[in-house]
């Protein structure tokens, strides 16, 4: 590409050819950090998937012998902890990191080094949780760590790994939430008003706010669990007058907003994909945005629906039953808007579109089974049965994971420059859809028949055998579909079709730049004039409102000689150093009192990292 601006050339040249492990360890480029998040979450997805398969193999037939009771407890705890904290949240962070600045027309996030710190804390937190398997057993008290189960057994360190691991993963998310909020507030391109922001950017913002205000609550709860276990405090000790119910409140005050933290990014992705593949603007765009904000606020007011069997009393139960019914309204608004977007559009059923449509269908089922929980007597019946397992997998797998895969197929060409194979992509989608429904639809029946969750085996003759067998077949089908995705990714690397800047005829700014984007994202900071600005650059409307291409409208903007110089964040070693210090700290804290030495070394390392960080020059010498 011919560039007239010497600033662009120097920015490109000085960052060109930075390769090798060291450059990844010190990177502050939001796109590289996004890629690191993406690859890491995919690896943990495979780990969490293997855990799920072991659970399903154990339950395939009555009196299963694949796992011991102890191993089973570790599997269901780690499957959930992995999928929630190490897969879906970081996968959403991958998309947000990579795309948010580009969607806003910016060259990076507000705090590039803080961004790197978030990633490294996340990866060390994931490592920390995973090594517990090899040192006496993984956490086994459920991903929700209900007290007093999580606080009682003090001689085994398993739940210490859980409490501290989730604690630092939360810190990573808190830092990136602050970073994203600041980015949205201050880094938007000229003309990019809040209401012109792409819906994905909006949903990422709502998620950042949910993280900001829900994580501190669970942080305190986790400290209290850890102190009960290690210092002898009595927060959740019923014998001394403490109440385990407090833990349930603290956990679900975080836990329900967390559900929206997991689903809103997928909703944002779907809101980007549907208009492109329907060649229509998003129907009722402002309603989608405002219902997202409404979900964010209301998400803080429904937590006790997880505690209907705890004996909260009729007033609390009636209140939370009502709020739970109400929160279905903004969610329903979104679904109508998505359907309205597809309605009457010229629909292309490419793989991203298939996953998005799959998302809508599966999420509707999960949402409806969710509303049934707002009926307190009915919820009491379903509580702790496989009906609940079915419900939240329809939301988190049928919803979040389908949406995220839609995003992977949609943005893969932008990120790698090559298009994933459509045939294999469609095969992946259909196999995953069939496998998913085979796995989780039967669990509704199993649950209503009374099969309890978190029980490692069931006897013959209770009517559980057939549907459990089907569910196991379904889970293996999902595994095959994931294998096809991996093959597709591998093949594309060598033989994929070159994508070009704008393979899907996109509407938002990321399609206006090269694939993969240059390190500085935009040669010229775009000036935004409308929603879906890039679309309006490419097309005008004729009298009947049909789009007519503008010749050359989609060409990249080229910098002139007068454009201001480009500042890119310098690489830094200190984020990974500080994150490693945190890893040492929590590892030491597991083995109090002897481990305190290691924890001390960790704290010193953190301080060293932060001190070096604050003394580091702002930009590299050549600027």
């Amino acid at each position, binding site marked *: 590409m011919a560039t007239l601006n010497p600033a662009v050339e120097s920015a490109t040249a000085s960052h060109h050819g930075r390769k090798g492990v060291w450059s990844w360890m010190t990177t502050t480029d939001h796109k590289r950090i996004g890629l690191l998040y993406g690859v890491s979450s995919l690896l943990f997805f495979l780990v969490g998937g293997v855990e799920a398969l072991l659970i399903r193999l154990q339950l395939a037939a009555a009196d299963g012998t694949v796992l011991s009771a102890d191993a089973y407890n570790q599997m269901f705890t780690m499957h959930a902890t992995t999928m929630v904290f190490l897969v879906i949240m970081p996968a959403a962070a991958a998309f947000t990191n990579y795309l948010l600045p580009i969607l806003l027309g910016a060259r990076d996030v507000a705090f590039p080094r803080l961004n790197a710190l978030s990633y490294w804390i996340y990866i060390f937190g994931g490592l920390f949780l995973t090594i517990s398997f090899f040192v006496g057993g993984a956490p086994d008290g459920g991903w929700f760590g209900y007290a007093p189960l999580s606080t009682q057994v003090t001689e085994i360190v398993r739940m210490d790994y859980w409490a501290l691991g989730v604690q630092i993963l939360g810190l990573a998310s808190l830092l990136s939430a602050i970073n994203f909020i600041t980015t949205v507030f201050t880094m938007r391109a000229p003309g990019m008003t809040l209401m012109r922001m792409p819906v994905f950017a909006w949903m990422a913002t709502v998620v950042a706010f949910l993280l*900001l205000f829900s994580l501190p*609550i669970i942080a305190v709860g986790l400290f209290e669990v850890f102190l009960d276990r290690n210092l002898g405090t009595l927060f959740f000790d019923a014998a001394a007058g403490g109440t385990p119910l407090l833990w349930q409140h603290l956990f679900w005050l975080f836990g329900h907003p967390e559900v929206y933290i997991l689903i809103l990014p997928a909703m944002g992705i779907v809101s980007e994909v549907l208009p492109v593949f329907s060649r229509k603007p998003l129907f009722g765009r402002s309603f989608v945005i405002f219902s997202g904000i409404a979900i964010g606020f209301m998400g*803080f007011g429904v937590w006790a629906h997880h505690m209907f069997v705890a004996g909260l009393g009729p007033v*609390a139960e009636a209140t939370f039953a009502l709020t739970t019914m109400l929160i279905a309204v903004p969610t329903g608004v979104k679904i109508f808007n998505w359907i309205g977007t597809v309605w009457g559009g010229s629909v292309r059923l490419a793989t991203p579109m298939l996953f998005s449509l799959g998302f809508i269908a599966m999420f509707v089922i999960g949402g409806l089974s969710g509303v049934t929980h707002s009926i307190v007597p009915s919820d009491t019946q379903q509580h702790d049965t496989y009906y609940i397992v079915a419900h939240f997998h329809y939301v988190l797998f049928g919803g979040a994971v389908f949406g995220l895969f839609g995003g992977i197929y949609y943005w893969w060409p932008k990120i790698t420059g090559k298009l994933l194979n459509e045939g294999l992509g469609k095969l992946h989608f259909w196999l995953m859809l069939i496998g998913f429904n085979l796995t989780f639809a039967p669990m509704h029946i199993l649950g209503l028949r009374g099969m309890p969750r978190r029980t490692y085996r069931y006897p013959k003759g209770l009517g559980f055998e057939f549907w459990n067998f089907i569910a196991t077949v379904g889970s293996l089908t999902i595994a095959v579909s994931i294998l096809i995705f991996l093959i597709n990714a591998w093949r594309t690397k060598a033989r994929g079709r070159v994508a070009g800047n704008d393979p899907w005829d996109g509407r938002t700014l990321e399609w206006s730049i090269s694939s993969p984007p240059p390190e500085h994202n935009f040669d010229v900071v775009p000036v935004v004039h409308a929603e879906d600005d890039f679309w309006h650059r490419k097309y005008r409307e004729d009298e009947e409102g049909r789009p007519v291409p503008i010749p050359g409208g989609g060409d990249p903007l080229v910098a002139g000689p007068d454009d201001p110089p480009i500042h890119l964040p310098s690489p830094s070693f200190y984020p990974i150093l500080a994150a490693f210090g945190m890893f040492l700290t929590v590892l030491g804290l597991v083995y109090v009192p002897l481990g305190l030495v290691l924890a001390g070394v960790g704290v010193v390392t953190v301080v060293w990292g932060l001190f070096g960080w604050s003394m580091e020059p702002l930009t590299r010498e050549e600027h």
Partner: protein
Amino acid sequence: MSEAIDRPHPTPRDYILIAVILFAITAAEVAVTYVDALDSARAPMLIVMSAAKFLLVVGWYMHLRFDRPAYRNLFLIGLVLTPVLFGAVLLSFGLLIGN
């Protein structure tokens, strides 16, 4: 850099005056706890006085009165959410009723 866009700040005289008021309220708070006659009115009085101190520090020392609304809103969400959520939690424990 932000000094340039902020509206004029209070002067050191204002700051010292506020410190005197903060001191006076604190003294009043402590005094109230020693007056037995105020038993039933004590809690609301203490809460009002503590809120006044809180607002003085946030509004003047932290410049929230003079600064951009975006800062105020970020802080206010957290500040409002906290008593609402935990009011509900404590209510469900029956603490705020009849106590």
